């Protein structure tokens, strides 16, 4: 068995291209792609920090003259006659914002009483272009200032106004947990699955297709050792591929979320124990994945056919992963952890949200190992079956 494993490793690690494409490339790709996506999104929806917005005002009241002293705003006063040309300029993304105050805004506001007034409140009209990022941001800024002004006039009470205080009682740890437990199980499962899918069919259906496995079968190597050796070595390689993708993701997530949101997401909230548990769960999961793909590959006549057979399974696994994104945390009923793939997803979910029950972890890992042993026995039977091996 050791001999078989050594050969599989020699085959894999001896092939630089294969190592690169199954282990290094996926992680690198994910990192580059996600980081790129993150910065592209930032470019798309954020304006430069030192941008000065061009704001046209009509009838700017004295009470809001402070707008002029805002660092990032350049206020240009205009007449009513300029309104229509300015609107088309905004439409053409040539200028950013037009604020039209009613004449005598300050007096009207002072005279207006929301409880007794028969008329509608004085209306401020702001023209902007939401597709034009700078215009949208200027709109948000000015709206904010106006709302603040309105509140200050009729302030009866404040909500959560003390900036120095923490009101959201969720801890950073919990928020990180919620975020990661939603995203990571699904990602991990699909990375592991695709890593396994890129090696197992090649090693089993491929050897069958090329007639090299028959050469092994005429030696006195036990079928069970051949099966176990293959499953174990392929699992290690699959794990490497999956872990590389995983590391790529972890490094890219902060970049993807951008500075502000990324700052509060820190994988550092997880302790050594969490990582050990994660590793154990994914290791046992890889065994199951490799086991299933190996068996499908055993039946397949070619690498292509093996890939085709495994695709529906991949979809199922993805669906299970996506479902966990929208569920409300890992279920606690232990019998659910007997179901392969589902158990792994829920365990990971539990670990990342700090709610994993040891008994369920144990059941998951135990089950997965048991399933793998059954599948290894089945694979040994397949190797011994002339009907499957030589058609």
């Amino acid at each position, binding site marked *: 068995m050791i*001999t078989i494993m050594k*050969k599989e490793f*020699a*085959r894999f690690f*001896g*092939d630089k291209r294969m190592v690169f494409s199954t282990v290094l490339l996926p992680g690198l790709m994910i990192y580059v792609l996600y980081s790129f996506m993150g910065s592209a999104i930032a470019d798309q929806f954020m304006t430069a920090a030192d941008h000065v917005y061009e704001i046209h005002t009509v009838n700017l009241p004295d009470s809001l003259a402070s707008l002029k002293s805002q660092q990032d705003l350049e206020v240009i006063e205009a007449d009513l006659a300029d309104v229509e040309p300015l609107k088309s300029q905004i439409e053409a993304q040539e200028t950013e914002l037009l604020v039209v105050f009613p004449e005598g805004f300050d007096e009207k506001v002072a005279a207006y009483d929301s409880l007794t007034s028969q008329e509608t409140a004085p209306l401020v009209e702001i023209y902007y272009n939401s597709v034009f990022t700078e215009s949208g941001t200027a709109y948000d800024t000015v709206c904010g200032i106006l709302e603040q002004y309105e509140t200050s006039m009729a302030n009866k009470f404040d909500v959560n106004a003390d900036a120095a205080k923490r009101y959201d009682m969720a801890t950073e740890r919990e928020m990180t947990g919620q975020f990661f437990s939603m995203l990571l199980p699904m990602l991990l499962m699909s990375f592991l699955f695709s890593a396994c899918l890129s090696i197992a069919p090649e090693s089993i259906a491929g*050897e069958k297709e*090329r*007639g*090299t496995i*028959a*050469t*092994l*079968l*005429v*030696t*006195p*190597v*036990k079928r069970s050792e051949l099966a176990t050796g293959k499953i174990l070595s392929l699992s290690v390689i699959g794990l490497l591929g999956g872990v590389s993708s995983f590391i790529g993701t972890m490094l890219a997530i902060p970049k993807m979320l951008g500075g502000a949101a990324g700052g509060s997401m820190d994988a550092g909230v997880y302790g050594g124990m969490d990582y050990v548990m994660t590793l154990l769960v994914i290791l046992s999961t890889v065994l199951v994945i490799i086991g299933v793909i190996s068996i499908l590959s055993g039946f397949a006549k070619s690498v292509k056919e093996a890939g085709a057979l495994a695709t529906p399974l991949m979809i199922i696994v993805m669906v299970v992963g996506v479902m966990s994104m929208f569920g409300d945390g890992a279920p606690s009923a232990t019998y659910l952890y007997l179901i392969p793939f589902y158990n792994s997803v829920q365990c990971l979910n539990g670990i990342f949200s700090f709610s994993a029950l040891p008994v369920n972890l144990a059941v998951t890992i135990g089950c997965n190992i048991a399933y793998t042993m059954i599948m290894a026995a089945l694979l040994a039977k397949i190797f011994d079956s*002339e009907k499957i*091996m*030589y058609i």
Partner: protein
Amino acid sequence: MEEMLKAQELSKTFKLSKKQQKLEKTTTKTKTAVDRLSFSAYRGEVFGLLGPNGAGKTTTLRMLATLIRPDTGDAVIEGSSIITDPNGVRSKIAFLTSELKLEEFFTPDYLFDFFSELHGVAPAERDERKRRLFGRFGISDFAGVKVANLSTGMKQKVSLVISMVHDPQTIIFDEPTNGLDVITARVVTDFLQELKAEGRTIIVSTHIFSLIEKICDRVGIIVSGKMAVCDTLENLTAEKSLEDKFFDIYAEMEGKVL
């Protein structure tokens, strides 16, 4: 004469899929490829299975090599039964056919060590044997070259050498010269004769009369999965050429079958 291999009443019937039925132009659902075949091979001889394509030669040899199981009958090779002790058989024989391939990614040197390990050959013994066999076949210079980059002839020699890692006494070879150029074919037949001279038992299958005449001591003629005649080459060719003799037998057998 020491009996090294004894096949008794070996039979193999395949179920035919719809596709295979069409291919064979038949409507029967089964095909009896080998029909109660019995023969023996003795130490130090080359035994040839002669028959036309589809006679059941490959199926017979695959049963002997434990790749497929006979439906009935048994064969005992050097004391191990293919039914009850297939691993014993596997460790005693070398089985060679053009269908068994070597992983092209590896070098002859690596493959020799790998198969030695699978056969449980001690390192010292392995190294000595490797040096001798690689030298004998001129592989030494290519020992570190991936099989994928070797010529067809060289690949065939490597296959031959790899099958000998455990120093087997019984060598089973399906269509030894099929698809080989004349030079490699010559290398193979020379080697088979060398092995015979060393006292090993060789079983080959072929449809080529000249090959049988050249290397075989005894011949079994198979027609439609049945053993038509099994005798020494000398006796078979006593009155006429092997080819004429074969067609006499073939006509007689087919006459009975039809």
